[in-house]
């Protein structure tokens, strides 16, 4: 057991911390609001090797584990960087797993093409994460895993979280079926969930910090509002939620990296809990901003919208909880 970053991880974390805080301020996020994507930033991230870092070395990737990728994703979450890092990394890993010799892999490793995966099975008209910009899409139909390329619409459907979201007509893509077990796709989904949890945790920490900083600047009734006990308690609860989500997300990432028995359920749990914690953190901080929390000009609303919107890409939480129930209650695995 070693529940903090190793020295190596610390060093990598610092690189990403520097990258995201220096390259992606709130103005970057606002400028990309209508497209959900900053290609120049993507290219710069690609130069750090991050886009391909978690692909196997055998296909030209960096061979890093998810835990290392999660360091970058955490900072993406903190800064709300408009980049399809999660989708691209997960889809690239999936393709490398299923078809290590696939012709498309090279451009994905280079980052010149963007890959994503469709999260719903058997729905050829679904909204795909990064669907507006992805050149390559992987999805599941029945027991088959397919890959399609071409025809990124570019256009974005306006959405709550300023995401590069669009519908993809999967049947119309230039499609091929990949050989491989359908359950490999479950693993990709779990990776997406665990990384989404990681991004949400990052956003939750950042939103909490906005609130904590604001209540230490704002006076009302001749008192710093950060001294009011009800605000202190609201922020303490939010902090507890995000810290708990952080530990769970990290454990989910670890479970995937080390192939633990709960590697397919912990990521889902982490995503569900992180979604609620991040939203609660953003909503609490927003509330304590008073009217300013609602103003476009302040950053907290950016976090509020993404905390709700990011995990909605997966689908409604109700059916996911029932899926977990089927997996967990029948086996009694808790």
């Amino acid at each position, binding site marked *: 057991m070693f529940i903090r970053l190793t020295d190596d991880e610390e060093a990598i974390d610092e690189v990403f911390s520097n990258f995201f805080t220096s390259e992606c301020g709130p103005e970057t996020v606002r400028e990309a609001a209508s497209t959900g994507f900053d290609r120049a930033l993507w290219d710069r991230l690609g130069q750090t090797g991050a886009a391909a870092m978690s692909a196997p070395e055998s296909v030209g990737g960096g061979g890093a584990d998810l835990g290392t990728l999660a360091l970058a994703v955490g900072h993406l979450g903190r800064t709300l960087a408009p980049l399809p890092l999660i989708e691209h990394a997960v889809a690239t890993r999936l393709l490398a797993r299923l078809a290590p010799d696939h012709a498309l892999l090279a451009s994905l490793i280079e980052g010149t093409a963007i890959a994503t995966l469709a*999260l*719903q099975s058997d729905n050829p008209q679904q909204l795909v994460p990064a669907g507006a910009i992805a050149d390559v899409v992987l999805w599941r139909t029945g027991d088959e895993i397919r890959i399609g390329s071409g025809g990124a619409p570019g256009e974005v459907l306006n959405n*709550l979280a300023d995401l590069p*979201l669009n519908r993809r007509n999967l049947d119309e893509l230039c499609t091929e079926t990949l050989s491989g077990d359908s359950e490999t796709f479950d693993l990709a989904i779990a990776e997406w969930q665990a990384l989404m949890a990681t991004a949400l945790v990052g956003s939750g920490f950042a939103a909490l910090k906005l609130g904590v900083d604001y209540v230490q600047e704002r006076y009302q009734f001749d008192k710093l509002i950060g001294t009011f006990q009800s605000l202190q308690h609201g922020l303490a609860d939010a902090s507890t939620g995000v810290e708990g989500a952080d530990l769970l997300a990290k454990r989910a990432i670890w479970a995937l990296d080390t192939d633990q028995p709960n590697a397919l359920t912990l990521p889902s749990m982490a995503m569900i809990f992180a979604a609620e914690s991040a939203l609660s953190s953003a909503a609490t901080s927003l*509330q304590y901003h008073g*009217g300013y929390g609602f*103003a476009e000009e302040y950053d907290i609303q950016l976090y509020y919208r993404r905390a709700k919107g990011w995990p909605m890409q997966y*689908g*409604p939480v109700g*059916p996911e909880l029932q899926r977990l129930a089927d997996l967990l209650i029948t086996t009694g695995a808790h």
Partner: protein
Amino acid sequence: MDFSFTPEAEAFRVEVKAFIAEHLTPDVLESTREGTIHNQGFHKKMAERGWLNGAVPAELGGGGRDPLEMLVLVEELQLAGAPIDGMGVAVIVAAIVLELGNDHLKETVVPPIIGGDALCSFGYTEPDSGSDVAAATTVAVQDGDEWVINGQKMWTTMAHIADYVLLLTRTNPDVPKHKGLTFFIVPLDTPGIEIQPVHTMGTERSNATFYDNVRIGDEWRIGDVDGGWAVMKAGLKFERGIAGGQFPSAMLIDAAIAAAEAAPRADDATAIDDPRVREQIVRAMIDLEVARGFAYKTAFLASQGVMFGVEGSMLKLFVAEAYKKHTQWFLEMLGSEGLLSLDTPGAPVGGHLDEHFRHAPVTSIYGGTSEITRNLIAGAHLGLPRS
């Protein structure tokens, strides 16, 4: 105990519904998309029915319509999603002027406001005073028969289309803060006023207004010099008369049911078949009935001449907190499709659930945050001592 509306109120409900069917056209609803929940044509039509005047107490010379009938009006308008921000301000300003204003104001301001020809906005809040409204620093200094005003207001919603602003100023910095305030009704075309838009994460547009050596005559003052706190309290009192029906969740529930019926789920079902969604809809309905209880009680008390009941505060607190929760539920049940915003192709029920979600947080902030409201309930209702 009797929770029934009078036959007159029920008849009025029929009239209001017919009015809505006739005048709340798609164009009117569309017009609020620019971010200001006001439509001049619709507002004028309401004024022509005497409904603005109806909300003004009779003893002040207003229409003095039964508060329960006014509740019916607000309830139906809110259920239909009609733009009524302008109405709310108009009624309160008219009532304040009639109670505390001079003849100039009564003659100049009230008739066009009640007639639906002029619009007013509130100028209470400042960048550094939100919950602590008495800390206003916008300064008014007397200069002969005139006042010179300098300062800034935030959240002067509708100021860009309004004729007047009800402006809270500081006229005496040397006394406890709530004893040095004075109110003015300032025509917004007075030189020195600048209006800048404030955009929000909801679809609403508000304004910041700047006052740079704005000169107005003393006839625009309302209430005593340094007597602003009394004006504020009067405004609060009249607010109760028309704010009884705060039912954002009523519209939301309709939208949620429609959206759930159309949202596909596994095995050819839709979200409306999901027991979890069904439970959430029922819970929202229960919360709505609770809100109605508070609203009815508040309106009943107003009809009995009792202006301050804790029910008004509880209504505000309960409705805002419940509404926020409901918007989270009903957006979430849609999964990825729920992300699509207002007027985006394919957005469930036109994206209105996203609109509700974006709008909801401000309802526990404006007009008194949930925290301030809880302080009030703990102090005034439960009798707990100040810390």
